[in-house]
């Protein structure tokens, strides 16, 4: 059972929004007492996903939530865009694959950095990625 303690949304429209967004996520992570390593992991994963959103879907909305499950607190980020969508999610999650010109480790890398990772995409409608990083995860 995950209980949402705090909610916040942020619109991402241009590259300049990335740094303020990361700072906001960091603020929440600090507030729940996340360790520096986990903070950095969460921020890096968030940064990957938000850059994907900008690159492929021209931006979107991110929902930042502080959640609690039992004794553990964590941050859940939901990235929603109305971009072209991902046709083959399994391929997109493979290391080294990129439909753009990047390193191709954004999605699989982000998955390795967080505790829970969920991706849903409908071609032509958009993509939703949800990640959770627990405080002591």
């Amino acid at each position, binding site marked *: 059972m995950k209980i949402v303690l705090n909610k916040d949304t942020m619109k991402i429209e241009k*590259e300049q929004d*990335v*740094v303020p967004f*990361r700072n906001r996520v960091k603020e929440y992570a600090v507030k729940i007492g996340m360790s*520096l*390593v986990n*903070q*950095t*992991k969460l*921020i*890096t994963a968030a*940064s*990957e996903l938000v*850059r994907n959103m900008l690159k492929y879907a021209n931006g979107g909305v991110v929902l930042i939530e502080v959640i609690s499950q039992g004794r553990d607190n964590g941050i859940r980020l939901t990235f929603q865009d109305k971009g072209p969508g991902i046709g083959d999610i399994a391929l997109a999650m493979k*290391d080294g694959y990129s439909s753009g010109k*990047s*390193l191709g*480790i*954004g999605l*699989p*890398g*982000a998955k*390795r*950095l967080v505790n829970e990772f969920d991706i849903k995409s409908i071609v032509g409608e958009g993509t939703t990625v949800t990640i959770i990083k627990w405080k002591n995860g």
Partner: protein
Amino acid sequence: MKTDISKLLQKKRKQILETWMTIQLSDESLRDNLMSNEDLQEQSNELLDELLGTLNDKNIKDSGSADFDRVREVLSGISISRARQGYTPRDTGFYVFSLKDALLQTLQQEIKDDPEFLFQTSVYLNKLMDAFGITTFETFIQGREDVILRQTSEIAEISTPVIRVWDGILALPIIGTLDSARTQVVMENLLQEIVESGSTIAILDISGVPAVDSLVAQHLIKTVSATKLMGAECIISGIRPEIAQTVVHLGIDLSHVVTKATMASALRYAFNVMRLEIKKIQKEKADN
């Protein structure tokens, strides 16, 4: 009875200006430290001249009319200069809207016997002045944005200094996020400096980079490759423990790049490569 509105206003020009100045000066938020009253009077005079000079029975109904181009120009000039001088949008907005008050007051005094005409003219004037108000805000924001843009490019320039730490060794501390535009500046500065100084080793210090994601890593790798092509060796230093863990989890391969935890160890490595040695000098005994 039909009064010619533009003639009427022309005739009352002096009175309008006086009323306008009184309203402006009576406002508590007037910033007389930014502009003297004489300058304000002159500025107001110029704007009023332009406005009353163009206003006629036809274009009063059409705030988008090309007749007002000159007025808008003067207005834009005023609000841009005000934005740069540090006026708040409220001050500038008040400046235009107080002119509206002055005009309406004058109309009220002059057209007492024809309420319908007074009402009609007031509505037109209101619309016209509102449109001018919007123009003011647009240009005010434009002026502020120009300031921000200038500062952004200034920051980009000063934030990537290339330091000659030793003969043949360059250091480049990077602070903040590395985006594509910044990488370009960093790379250009670094490569240029390598040529100019004939350096063989460059140290990129990322202690000040808050997070290294795949894009930042990609930019770093590109910079390292470009340095190698120039015949110099590139060391990345300032890798903090949490950054190291993140990079590993993310799956970025930096194994072909020389990386060090601190600038000091990068420098020691550089000295080693250049076969330099640093020694503590033994002081010769004075009594010998």
